[in-house]
């Protein structure tokens, strides 16, 4: 049977390679050849479903790994077993070719391999994954490090290069914090630790070597997706790098004969923290304790469990809970084993996998399209007027599944805001220390979830507001005591969902915003007119105007050239809003209000001629039909509409997009009062068609930079509309004159 020829020729070529082996020892290059042929054999046997051949080849492969790694006790026995395996495969091959079956015995061979490799027989074939985990030493030469190369110039090089490497680690770890999914950064951090460890080993710098090794291992686990990037991990790596740096600097000072004090680094504590970071990650998979499961199953009462737990702890050596309970006769072994099985199942249920964010984004986009096409189908006149009951039932079922799918897919990308809050909390700690103030942090609602893509976008605004709170909001301890406040200031971070929005509040119990002062300054800077009567909210919002700063002195903390106007812009980019509440000497609260997701917006659909446009509802202040007399056209000032108590410039949308409108006379059309970054204007449209939630589609590359438009959307009726960007429109209208 020819189908076996390729297998047989592979085996024969292995047999002839084997003949040329000297000294009964398979060396590295020979092992390489055998590995590759075995790979091909296993694949071929697998394709043809010849399980006997496959398991013999897999057995040989695992034996060969041991041989190549010098990890085999009895080399001669290994060599002989390898030969036997090849002969056995030849027999199987011949028998298959001649009779189509092989009825001989492969168990004896498999057992002999299992003995040699120290593996269970049933696992032959799957053993590859275990090889790396055993982590025993490779080779024989490790412990004989020599002193001979401990020369000074090498040490000097190591110090210089090692310190450079640590700088590199610091840069990359900050990058990693920004992009936790980027494995390039993980590698870029892993490698320097690895290199430092390597050279330190040669230089007999055992402490440095060991510590770098611990850090390297930690990074290795991140690399292999066994550990996720979280702030506690970032912190410990930074601290670890610091410790390593201190050790190398000390080495340097010692070498240069500088007087040095013994290092005060608690390496044991750092190592413990590393362990707990690793442990934390495991803990995120919340699995019920065995005892809890037993109690739930009513296998045992809580009291009995307590006793069992005590007994387990007190026995020497400590027993596992299950063992102790069994030996005390409180539960049967069967109950324990059932509970253990349950525990395992639960662990599987709550197991977490890591998914590339790009895939998630794609999924959510696609679901977005599905939602649109679904609503188009539902509004299709044929569907709406049909009387087929089954079709109608199916369409309504499709509706509920689609909306469920949309909810689920949006949830996929949601992460708790906890991590962001923790970073803020650290920031407060650092800032207050720098400013010489005492400030505590309280976090609430840190489990509130937020779109992962928003996390990065809200980071900078939050940082800025936290900075303001600590730097300008909270007074020094002396002032606080004088005011009868607790000596220690407080920054409160709070997050919660409200309607379809997420609200993030940053409050401080500091001096609060002084309305009088704000107004006075605004008038001074000619930002408002002294005769304007402003609401509290409007006065507070003055701080968002560019170039507005209330701090008498600019400290190095807040004086970084970004004002609250930048915060406002960033928040508005996310289609969010800021509300301010403040009481003088009591404190301020800044509440950021964001839509839950960046993929969908609430829009007002307007019509101009045959075109449809979508205006984000957050930007609309008022809709009105101008009456005679409210329209003015003043030379030099252009067209205006009297709206909201002011004369606001009129922007004719049809002029901007060059379409033929139904109405040119403002009094026949509709005016939308739009709010831009720091001004409002009136937008002239033909008609308001309604309000709709639309899924934002980005425009192609060529239109990406088009002004006045932030995206496109397919509307419920199947028409396409452009989503307008108020600020861009204003700029366009000004350039048109």
């Amino acid at each position, binding site marked *: 049977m020819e189908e076996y020829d390729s297998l047989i020729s592979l085996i024969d070529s292995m047999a002839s390679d084997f003949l040329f082996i000297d000294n009964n020892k398979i060396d*590295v290059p020979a092992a390489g050849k055998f590995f590759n042929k075995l790979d091909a054999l296993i694949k071929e046997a697998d394709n043809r479903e010849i399980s006997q051949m496959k398991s013999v080849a897999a057995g040989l492969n695992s034996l060969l790994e041991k041989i190549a790694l010098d990890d085999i006790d009895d080399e001669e026995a290994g060599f002989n077993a390898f030969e036997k395996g090849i002969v056995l495969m030849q027999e199987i091959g011949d028998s298959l070719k001649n009779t189509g079956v092989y009825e001989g015995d492969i168990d004896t061979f498999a057992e002999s391999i299992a003995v040699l490799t120290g593996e269970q027989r049933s696992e032959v074939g799957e053993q590859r994954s275990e090889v790396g985990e055993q982590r025993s030493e490779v*080779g024989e030469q490790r412990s*004989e490090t020599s002193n*001979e190369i401990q020369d000074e110039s090498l040490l000097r090089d190591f110090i210089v290069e090692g310190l450079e490497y640590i700088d590199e680690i610091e840069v990359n770890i900050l990058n990693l914090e920004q992009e936790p999914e980027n494995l390039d950064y993980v590698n870029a951090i892993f490698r320097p630790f690895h290199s430092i460890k390597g*050279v330190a080993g*040669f230089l007999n710098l055992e402490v440095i070597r060991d510590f770098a090794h611990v850090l390297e291992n930690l990074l290795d686990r991140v690399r292999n997706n066994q550990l996720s990037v979280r702030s506690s991990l970032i912190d410990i790596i930074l601290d670890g790098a610091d410790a390593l740096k201190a050790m190398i600097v000390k080495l340097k000072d010692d070498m240069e004969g500088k007087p040095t004090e013994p290092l005060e680094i608690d390496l044991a504590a750092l190592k413990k923290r590393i362990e707990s970071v690793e442990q934390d990650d495991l803990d995120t998979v919340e699995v019920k304790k065995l005892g809890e499961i037993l109690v739930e199953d009513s296998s045992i009462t809580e009291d009995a469990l307590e006793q069992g737990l005590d007994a387990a702890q007190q026995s020497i050596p400590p027993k596992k809970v299950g063992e102790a309970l069994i030996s005390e006769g409180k539960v049967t072994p069967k109950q324990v084993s059932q509970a253990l099985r349950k525990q395992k199942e639960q662990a599987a249920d709550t197991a977490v996998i890591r998914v590339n964010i790009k895939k998630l984004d794609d999924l959510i986009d696609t679901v977005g399209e599905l939602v649109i096409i679904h609503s188009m189908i539902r509004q299709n006149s044929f569907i709406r007027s049909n009387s087929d009951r089954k079709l109608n039932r199916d369409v309504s079922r499709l509706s509920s599944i689609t909306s469920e799918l949309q909810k689920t897919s949006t949830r996929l990308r949601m992460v708790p805001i906890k991590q962001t809050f923790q970073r803020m909390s650290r920031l407060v700690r650092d800032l207050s220390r720098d400013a010489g103030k005492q400030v505590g942090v309280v976090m609430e609602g840190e489990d509130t979830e937020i779109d992962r893509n928003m996390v990065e976008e809200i980071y900078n605004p939050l940082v800025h507001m936290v900075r303001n709170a600590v730097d300008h909001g909270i007074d020094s301890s002396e002032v606080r005591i004088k005011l009868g406040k607790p000596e220690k200031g407080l920054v409160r971070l709070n997050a919660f969902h409200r309607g379809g929005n997420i609200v993030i509040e940053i409050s401080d119990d500091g001096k609060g915003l002084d309305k009088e002062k704000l107004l006075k300054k605004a008038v001074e800077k000619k930002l408002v007119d002294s005769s304007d009567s402003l609401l509290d909210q409007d006065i507070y919002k003055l701080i968002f105007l560019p170039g507005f700063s209330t701090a008498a002195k600019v400290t190095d903390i807040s004086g970084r050239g970004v004002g609250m106007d930048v915060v406002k812009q960033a928040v508005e980019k996310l289609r969010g809003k800021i509300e301010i509440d403040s009481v003088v000497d009591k404190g301020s609260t800044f509440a950021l209000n964001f839509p839950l997701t960046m993929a969908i917006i609430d829009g007002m659909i307007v019509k101009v001629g045959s075109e449809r446009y979508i205006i984000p509802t957050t930007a609309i202040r008022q809709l009105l039909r101008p009456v005679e007399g409210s329209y003015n056209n003043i030379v030099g000032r252009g067209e205006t509409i009297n709206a909201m108590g002011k004369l606001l410039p009129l922007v004719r949308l049809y002029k901007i997009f060059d379409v033929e409108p139904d109405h040119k006379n403002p009094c026949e059309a509709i005016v939308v009062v739009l709010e831009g970054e720091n001004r409002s204007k009136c937008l002239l449209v033909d008609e308001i068609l309604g309000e709709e939630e639309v899924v934002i589609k980005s425009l192609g590359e060529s239109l990406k930079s088009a002004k006045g438009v932030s995206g496109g959307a397919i509307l419920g009726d199947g028409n396409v509309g452009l989503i307008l960007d108020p600020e861009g429109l204003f700029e366009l209208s000004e350039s048109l004159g």
Partner: protein
Amino acid sequence: MDIDKNMKIMVVDDFATMRKVIKNLLKQAGYKNITEAEDGVEALKALKSEKVDFIISDWNMPNMNGLEFLKGVRADSEFSGLPFLMVTAEGLKENVVEAVKAGVSNYIVKPFTSEVLNKKIEKIVEKM
């Protein structure tokens, strides 16, 4: 067997201090003709213009790691038999198996002495 201590050995490692360590060890073992490269990319380039008799390469390097470098060397028929000694860290068994499959001549685990290094080199060269 006498080994030609004048053969040209190329040491590939991104960490300059490590290259120096290995160079010192080679010198202690009597090898005089040593050249260096910072990573696989540079080494492959150098191989085109320079005659090299023996390669000692680290596993963990940016741009192109030791395994990729090894594969690059073996992919060129001119270098299919060029001695290639891979330097690895302890515990990285799966790496070693990968390297063996890709045709490495032998491997050595950090840290090592000049005697062990010399033994490995001799073992490889004797086989040729």
